[in-house]
């Protein structure tokens, strides 16, 4: 038993001189400790003696399907059958694996070529080994189903039988290794169910919260409710007396060294015992300064600021004031949106073992590398002393880009060295100690000329920040349609706040889409047009607009127009339609490299309750949908997520310096009854490399709903969330 892996498995091993990438010593990365002498290894493939294949899935899986998709790319070019593949989550090791995070819909554009090249390079080495063995030219060989085939002599050899020889073949130049053409794909573009789906359905322990280690203890955390508070006193002795309590450890939540809260962790033999023991803690906090902050205070500060001159400029092109002064018609409106929580269904948690100056994590993190850096700094240990196992994650949505749970459990683990400790937030902890989607306020003026053309646009954006810089996730860039018109002024002012902010799925876009696409619907109305037609005219001729650094991003009006036209055809869009509580709305948004246009049908009942009945989505994420079933699921999920942000009543209010929502009764998520009867999705292929789908389908649905409500009721939604009081 327990023979070393090396003796039991053929190892395909190679390394590349210079440059970052290379090929695989699968043994090292899949089975052993991270970083063991390996700084230039990139390990994704293991060939088993029975000619089955283990492919390492290197990115965190949060429900976006990456644990299935990245291995599909490798398997495709390795030219093996999907049925021959087993998948293992790799360890976190930023020195070995490039781009090992789940954020920004980056994984597809980042890894589409590199993962394929890793598979193709391995295939090429196997072919070379077979050519040498049989003394035949390489180009007389083909591959398929994990075999090299020499048709002329009717010989074939399994990859497993060639693996040891292949490992001695020099690694090809990855940039030059030939790749399949789309016509040759057998896996890419074919639906593959999630690799963990059968295990999920069987209730197997896959998630961070399911981690069990020998001798493990549990921790609950009482953090100062007000952000930035410090601890005065607490009854450690009273808590330690309780049966099952092992230790009481003062810590800091350290979302950010500037605004971490003091907290007290209780370690016990059971999480339930630890959490119950919080009642005996009687903490006293020093939080007078933090308690000054509130949603009401932010709203009045924003109201006072928004009509003044902005503190700074985000986009200043041409002369917006002059253009607006000369406009035939102007439209003005103010918009706002609230703080939002992420509310992943798996509450924040993390498990760690601190021993002999080293720490080992089992972490549901979307972003392990900064977690490692944070812990190294916090504990004063080298990065090499930190091992991070990545678990499956019960929802990310950007919450787990912040590694506060790693920082928290690291301090607790250090307080009980030698004992693995699993820290779990309650739902209240999770909703209160989030990194919130920041609230924001906008004041717009748009100008139309006599022909109804957009000739000038101004926005004063009031957000959170200090020193002339936005807080995390609180910025804004050159929002559409800044790149399309000559006279634009987007100004910004910053409010001071104690509230930790962060990235929520389609960050900034989830809010900006609402304000800009709703306001543009108002402007379109003033021009006697529907929004789809107004956008077509504003975009003008088909062209690629180059990015202007620090001002506006790239934009392709042909791609935008294609999805707009497509969704209008799908839905039978005839312009503004609605009345008597039924209405249809449209919106378009470009984010995370994806172009999306959406149409929704809503019903608003006499009590002001909104139901989304049907949604049509047209999206362009490049020339290849890699896993069609998962692509559809991402879009469906994003659409309903957006419906939730718009209509479920989601809003975090800050009271006494702290978020005041405590569970799903006061922070509601969309339930099955909110799901439309149908979400029709079509992808519009374009001649561009494939890009990601976790985010870009979400932003347009929110303004499409607001615009549909206007069509249904004549009431313009300028504030989120949409509540019945706005509509009766």
């Amino acid at each position, binding site marked *: 038993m327990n023979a070393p892996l090396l003796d039991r498995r053929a190892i395909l091993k190679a390394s590349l001189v210079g440059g970052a990438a290379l090929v695989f010593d699968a043994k090292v990365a899949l089975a052993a400790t991270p970083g063991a002498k390996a700084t230039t290894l990139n390990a994704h493939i293991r060939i088993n003696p029975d000619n089955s294949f283990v492919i390492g899935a290197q990115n965190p899986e949060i429900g976006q399907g990456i644990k299935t998709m990245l291995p599909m790319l490798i398997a495709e070019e390795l030219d093996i059958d999907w049925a021959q593949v087993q998948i293992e989550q790799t360890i976190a090791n930023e020195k070995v694996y490039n781009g090992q995070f789940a954020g920004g819909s980056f994984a597809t554009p980042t890894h589409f070529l590199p993962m394929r090249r890793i598979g193709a390079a391995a295939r090429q080495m196997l072919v070379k080994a077979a050519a040498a063995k049989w003394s035949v030219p390489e180009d007389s060989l083909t591959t398929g189903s994990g075999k090299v085939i020499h048709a002329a002599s009717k010989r074939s050899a399994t990859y497993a039988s060639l693996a040891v020889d292949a490992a001695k073949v020099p690694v090809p130049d990855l940039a030059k290794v030939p790749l399949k053409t789309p016509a040759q794909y057998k896996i890419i573009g074919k639906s593959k169910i999630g690799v963990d789906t059968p295990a999920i359905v069987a209730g197997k322990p896959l998630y961070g919260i399911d981690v*069990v280690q020998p001798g493990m203890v*549990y921790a609950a955390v009482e953090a100062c409710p007000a952000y930035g508070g410090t601890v005065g006193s607490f009854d450690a002795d009273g808590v330690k007396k309780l049966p099952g309590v092992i230790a009481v450890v003062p810590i800091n939540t350290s979302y950010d060294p500037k605004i971490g809260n003091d907290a007290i962790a209780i370690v016990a033999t059971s999480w339930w015992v630890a959490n119950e023991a919080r009642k005996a803690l009687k903490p006293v906090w020093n939080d007078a300064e933090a308690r000054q902050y509130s949603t009401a205070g932010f709203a009045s500060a924003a109201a006072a600021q928004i009509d003044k001159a902005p503190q700074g400029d985000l986009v200043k092109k041409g002369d917006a004031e002059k253009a607006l002064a000369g406009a035939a018609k102007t439209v003005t409106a103010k918009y706002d949106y609230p703080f939002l929580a992420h509310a*992943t269904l*798996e509450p924040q948690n993390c498990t760690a073992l601190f021993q002999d100056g080293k720490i080992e994590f089992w972490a549901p993190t979307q972003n392990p590398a900064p977690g490692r850096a944070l812990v190294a700094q916090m504990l004063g240990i080298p990065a090499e002393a930190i091992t991070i196992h990545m678990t499956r994650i019960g*929802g990310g949505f950007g919450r787990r880009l912040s590694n506060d749970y790693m920082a928290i459990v690291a301090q607790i683990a250090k307080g009980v060295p030698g004992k693995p400790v699993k820290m779990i937030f309650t739902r209240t902890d999770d909703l209160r100690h989030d990194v919130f989607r920041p609230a924001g306020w906008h004041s717009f003026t748009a100008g139309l000329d006599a022909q109804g053309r957009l000739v000038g646009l101004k926005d004063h954006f009031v957000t959170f920040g200090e020193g002339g810089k936005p807080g995390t996730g609180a910025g804004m860039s050159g929002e559409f349609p800044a790149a399309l018109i000559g006279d634009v002024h987007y100004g910004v002012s910053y409010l001071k706040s104690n509230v930790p902010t962060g990235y929520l799925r389609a960050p900034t876009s989830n809010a900006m889409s609402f304000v800009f696409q709703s306001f543009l619907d108002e402007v379109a109305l003033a021009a006697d047009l529907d929004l789809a037609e107004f956008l077509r005219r504003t975009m003008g001729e088909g062209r690629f607009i180059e990015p202007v650094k620090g001002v506006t991003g790239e934009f392709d009006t042909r791609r935008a127009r294609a999805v707009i036209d497509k969704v209008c055809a799908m839905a039978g869009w005839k312009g503004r339609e609605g009345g008597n509580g039924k209405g249809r709305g449209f919106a378009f948004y470009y984010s995370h490299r994806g172009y999306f246009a959406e149409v929704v049908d809503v019903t608003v009942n006499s009590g002001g309750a909104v139901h989304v009945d049907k949604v049509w989505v047209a999206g362009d994420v490049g020339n290849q949908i890699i896993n069609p079933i998962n692509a559809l*699921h991402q879009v469906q999920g994003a*659409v309903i997520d957006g419906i939730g942000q718009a209509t479920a009543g989601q809003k975090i209010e800050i009271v006494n310096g702290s978020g005041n929502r405590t569970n*799903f009764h006061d922070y509601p998520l969309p*339930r099955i009854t909110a799901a439309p009867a149908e979400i029709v999705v079509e992808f519009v292929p374009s001649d561009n490399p494939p890009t990601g789908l976790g985010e870009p389908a979400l932003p347009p649905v929110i303004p499409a709903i607001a615009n549909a409500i206007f069509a249904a009721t004549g009431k313009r939604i300028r504030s989120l969330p949409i509540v019945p009081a706005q509509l009766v």
Partner: protein
Amino acid sequence: MTTTLSVNGQMRQVDSDPAKPLLWVLREDLNLLGTKFGCGMALCGACTVHIDGKATRSCVTPVSAAVGKKITTIEAVAATPAGKKVSEAWTALDVPQCGYCQAGQIMTATALLTDKPKPTDGEIDAAMTGNICRCATYVRIRAAIRQAAGLNEGTAA
């Protein structure tokens, strides 16, 4: 206090505070980790198990209340006829995204189909409304229940 529970057809002994919620007894004391913690207040359904066949929120059920009853969890639900059909449909339609809510969804759906083998669309929504899916897999949850029930098309509510 030593308590004897009938879990997935086996008698299991645990040494537990009688007030400890069944959820945490399953997870911590019986190493049955498929049943999930989402809210602790009977608001999300992630912790749903069957107690004497009824879908029950284990996060608010003290272990003492489960004594003498038959507890079934996600780990064994596929052994029941309805559970088998539901689990197969869930896999075939690839219902999960992150998957965290799905144990609870499957337990609730199985209880529904055990009671009402051919539910209407309205009955499906009504039965499932206590189970939150943050990833919003609801379109497929509906479709999978219909498939498990042998209902190809939706029926009138």
